[in-house]
């Protein structure tokens, strides 16, 4: 059986002359074109042979038998077709007449393709503008790009957007190239059947490799997030997680769990969620609500019911920690000004920022790759919150 060899194609499909020249060079080395795939060309290994290859363009899916016969009668055999391109070959010694003898006439064969490519460019560019608008809103509208990056929920959309940018670039290049080729033909310049293809081979290989990686990532990332993220009810007892617990801060044996509502068997007021992103592979978020029966809020507004919300991130690079804290402040600071957030010092932390206003105590802390944000609502001392954070941050940094 003939041995089929696959080779990455050297150039983009619209570089007709380069493809013709490549097929010819391959045949001279004994690789005879059989089929064209999306990225790879399939060759049959055989005797080296001097061949001529020509590529014809039609928008029709099926080539008429009449055409094939007319070409065959003149010495040109149909080899294969891909998209709008059909390949014909002829051994050099057959001395078949040139397929296209009139460049101006040949330019007519590109007209429909030219139109179609322009149409595609218009659609892709419109889609691109929408996506750019959407993505920049997600990334920059809040002014918290580091948070968006670390959180990771738009990573996949961003990768897909990059792919669409690449597609837009490719389709624009295709449209421009075919337009230029048509113009050359109208001016009487024939296609160069020996166009050098090596330069684009390397570039195309690199791009194809990158494209595969990026496309692969965009497929894996959401699975990673799906597998690694989950929300569960916070157990009442001790939990070996870097989450600051309400009981640790309150230090009141009378504290009981507050009332909440259930969604999908999860107590929504007392839950923790773990998540994963490429930038922050370990992430926790928790909410906890409690009540001390019989104890009232100072203003008499009801039973004392403290609550705590924790966000924990273990980053891949510590350099992001400061930016993440700045973004967390921006993102979750609903009513206070930046001046209300004061930097403090702690021997066991790299950065410590606190905000205290009546019952609201917020602490942002980082050490190495770890960042913790705690928002506590209650009467306990803020230093208790900080000491708990120091304990918890050790769990993931040591």
């Amino acid at each position, binding site marked *: 059986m003939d041995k089929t060899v696959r080779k990455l194609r050297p150039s983009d499909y619209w570089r007709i002359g380069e493809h013709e020249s490549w097929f010819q060079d391959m045949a001279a080395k004994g690789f005879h074109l059989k089929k064209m795939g999306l990225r790879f060309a399939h060759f049959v290994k055989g005797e080296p042979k001097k061949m001529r290859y020509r590529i014809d363009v039609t928008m029709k899916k099926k080539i008429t038998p009449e055409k094939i016969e007319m070409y065959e009668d003149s010495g040109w055999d149909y080899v294969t077709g891909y998209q709008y391109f059909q390949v014909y070959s002829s051994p050099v010694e057959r001395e078949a007449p040139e397929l296209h*003898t009139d460049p101006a006439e040949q330019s007519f064969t590109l007209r429909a393709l030219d139109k179609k490519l322009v149409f595609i460019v218009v659609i892709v560019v419109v889609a691109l503008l929408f996506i750019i608008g959407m993505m920049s809103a997600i990334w920059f509208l809040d002014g918290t790009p580091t948070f968006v990056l670390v959180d990771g929920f738009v990573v996949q959309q961003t990768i897909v957007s990059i792919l669409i940018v690449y597609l837009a670039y490719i389709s624009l290049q295709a449209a421009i190239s075919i337009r230029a080729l048509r113009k050359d033909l109208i001016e009487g310049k024939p296609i160069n059947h020996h166009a050098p293809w090596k330069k684009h081979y390397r570039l195309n290989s690199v791009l194809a490799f990158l494209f595969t990686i990026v496309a692969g990532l965009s497929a894996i990332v959401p699975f990673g997030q799906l597998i690694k993220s989950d929300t569960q009810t916070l157990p009442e007892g001790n939990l070996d997680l870097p989450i600051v617990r309400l009981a640790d801060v309150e230090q009141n044996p009378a504290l009981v769990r507050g009332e909440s509502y259930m969604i999908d068997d999860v107590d929504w007021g007392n839950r923790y969620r773990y998540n994963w992103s490429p930038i922050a592979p370990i992430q926790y978020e928790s909410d906890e609500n409690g009540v001390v029966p019989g104890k009232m809020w100072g203003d008499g507004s009801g039973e004392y019911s403290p609550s705590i919300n924790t966000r924990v991130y273990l980053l891949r690079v510590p350099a992001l920690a400061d930016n993440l804290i700045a973004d967390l402040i921006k993102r979750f600071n609903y009513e206070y000004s930046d001046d209300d957030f004061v930097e403090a010092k702690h021997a066991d932390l790299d950065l410590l920022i606190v905000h205290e206003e009546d019952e609201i105590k917020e602490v942002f802390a980082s050490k190495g790759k770890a960042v913790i944000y705690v928002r506590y609502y209650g009467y306990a001392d803020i230093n208790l919150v900080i000491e708990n954070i120091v304990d918890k941050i050790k769990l993931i940094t040591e």
Partner: protein
Amino acid sequence: MAYNGGPMTEAMYYVLLALMHPNHGYQLMHAITEVSNGRLKMGPGTLYGVLSRMQKDGLISLSEDDGRRKTYQITSEGEHALRTEYSRLKSLIQDGNILEIGDENG
């Protein structure tokens, strides 16, 4: 872009000329070489392109189609276009006569 009566390409002109006698693909290539006195050897790709375009424009039609081999013939519209182009080319030659007179003077 349908043919609008403007100048024809050389390929169109000779295909129409050759189709004054109905003919099919491969033989048509020879007929073109013949009517051009061996000056024009038209490639099959060019011929096929011209044929399908002129058929769409109604300048030529199929006189016979046995499924495999299509025989083309010129339509009256095509003949009219060909004759118009011929007179245009003739005027071109006539107007170019001043070059010959110029040569004689020089």
